[in-house]
């Protein structure tokens, strides 16, 4: 794990500092991770949203992965984390060399991420439907600590929304007006029974603001994340190619 802590690192006020890697490197980095081919599609479905978040939106710094003022990104859709690990490597949170050991016994990079093993990872995930509840608690806790700047992002899948636990969180967050909360839902039409009325309405009905955009259009995604309102949590539905 690389974690080049300097004395008194600056609080993150912008997305991570420039590294040698760009978006064009992500496919190559992902290809270093083999063994979870079943989730290749799940991984690539998240790629552009993850890149936009880490490259343009999240105020996080690999030199200070525990800075109290950092934005929080919670990967709730924990399966197929290859795109996530590739982005973390590209942004300097982990070393590229670690990617080759993906999924091996001694590797910190499991087929689902573990926050105890990987710097910059906020939650362990893998069982669907846990991230949003944890995000609600995180948002409440940061507010109680007087930390008003950090935003709390959660990435979910459309099939993951089947899990009822999400809807407990969506309803409560809307009722509580948790406006530091941001949900990103990757919609690759993988939910078995679909979502009649569309995914956005599930959030809007509970008082969230929403935007539904092309999940591969970086500029549209950036604008969608920024289109928030005070007093209301915000969801971005990122539509990508159907899984099947």
């Amino acid at each position, binding site marked *: 794990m690389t974690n080049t802590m300097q004395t008194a690192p600056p609080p993150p006020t912008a997305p991570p500092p420039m590294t040698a890697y760009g978006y064009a490197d992500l496919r190559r980095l992902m290809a270093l991770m083999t063994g979870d081919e079943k989730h290749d599609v799940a991984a690539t479905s998240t790629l552009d949203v993850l890149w936009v978040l880490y490259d343009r939106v999240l105020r996080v710094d690999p030199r200070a992965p525990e800075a109290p003022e950092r934005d929080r990104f919670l990967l709730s859709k924990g399966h197929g984390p290859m795109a996530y690990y590739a982005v973390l490597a590209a942004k300097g949170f982990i070393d590229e060399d670690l990617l080759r050991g993906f999924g091996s016994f001694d590797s910190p990079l499991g087929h689902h991420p573990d926050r105890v093993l990987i710097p910059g990872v906020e939650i362990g995930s893998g*069982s669907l439907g*846990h991230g949003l*509840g944890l995000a609600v608690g995180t948002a409440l*806790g940061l507010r*109680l600590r007087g930390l008003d700047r950090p935003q709390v992002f959660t990435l979910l899948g459309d099939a993951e929304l089947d899990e*009822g636990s999400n809807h407990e*969180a969506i*309803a*409560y967050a809307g009722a509580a007006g948790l406006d530091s909360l941001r949900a990103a839902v990757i919609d690759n039409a993988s939910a078995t029974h679909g979502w009649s009325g569309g995914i956005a309405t599930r959030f809007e009905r509970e008082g969230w603001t929403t935007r539904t955009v092309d999940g591969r259009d970086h500029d549209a995604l950036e604008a969608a994340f920024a289109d928030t309102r005070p007093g209301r949590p915000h969801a971005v539905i990122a539509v990508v190619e159907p899984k099947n």
Partner: protein
Amino acid sequence: METMRERFVATASDLLDADPRLAVVLADISAEQFAPAAAKHPGRVINVGIREQLLIGVTGGLALAGLRPIAHTFPSFLVERPFEQVKLDLGHQDVGAVLVSSGASYDMASMGRTHQAPGDVALLDTLDGWTVHVPGHPDEAEALLRAAAAAQGRVYVRLSGESNREPQVVRPGRFAIVRQGSADAAGTVVAIGPLLDPTLEAVADLDVTVLYATTVRPFDAATLRLVARRTAKADVVLVEPYLAGTSDREVNEALPDVPHRVLGLGVGREELRRYGTPAEHAAAHGLDASALRRRIAAFLG
């Protein structure tokens, strides 16, 4: 007498005054009782509504944000219903939290099975890193709640409507030696929490050592080993207010090199499908003084 649950509300409210890291998380149950504390500390008494998965998810998130959360409801809804959240949102995230239940195994006797959770401690036993306190009196409950709030790590405090008449001095994590049997004593009886009074009544004329436990995890093996060495026989009787057999393994692990038998008394596994009062349920499970006397005497011989 004030109940443990009432003492919990008072203690938690007091702790909110004193420690800015604390927050209380509810799922409607006890929300009314916490209303004064909620008014005094805006945002620090969080009622998520009847959403137990979110109750624990929020607890985990608060801990991730650096707070010490205290989550509360009945044990069936706190431990059993959201057990995956207990496992993953607390344990797998490696965060600390305090879970406080009230209702125990059959406090709500007339409500039936859905509101009874004798299996809660055994279920938590499948996870690593949990401290489990089972106070036997509101004073003990307060001491253990204060200890839990001040600690790190994951703590479960199991409150009960049943209570011993008098509080014992609590040293969290340690069994108290209430009575030392003679060198010829037949063994040791370990009474947990609110079952101390009926146990003492049951063994009044038996030559046994009596230990009193208000912390069952970690299990105070050192004290059990100490007293087992002082008596002719090292047989152990557990009197637990939750599922019978829950701590049998702990006794065996405490005495691996000492020949001993274990009688694990507690709540039966079969659903009674009876209502009435807690006292009637205690009797039905053989946990009142007369039944304990009969069963302990028969075992120790």
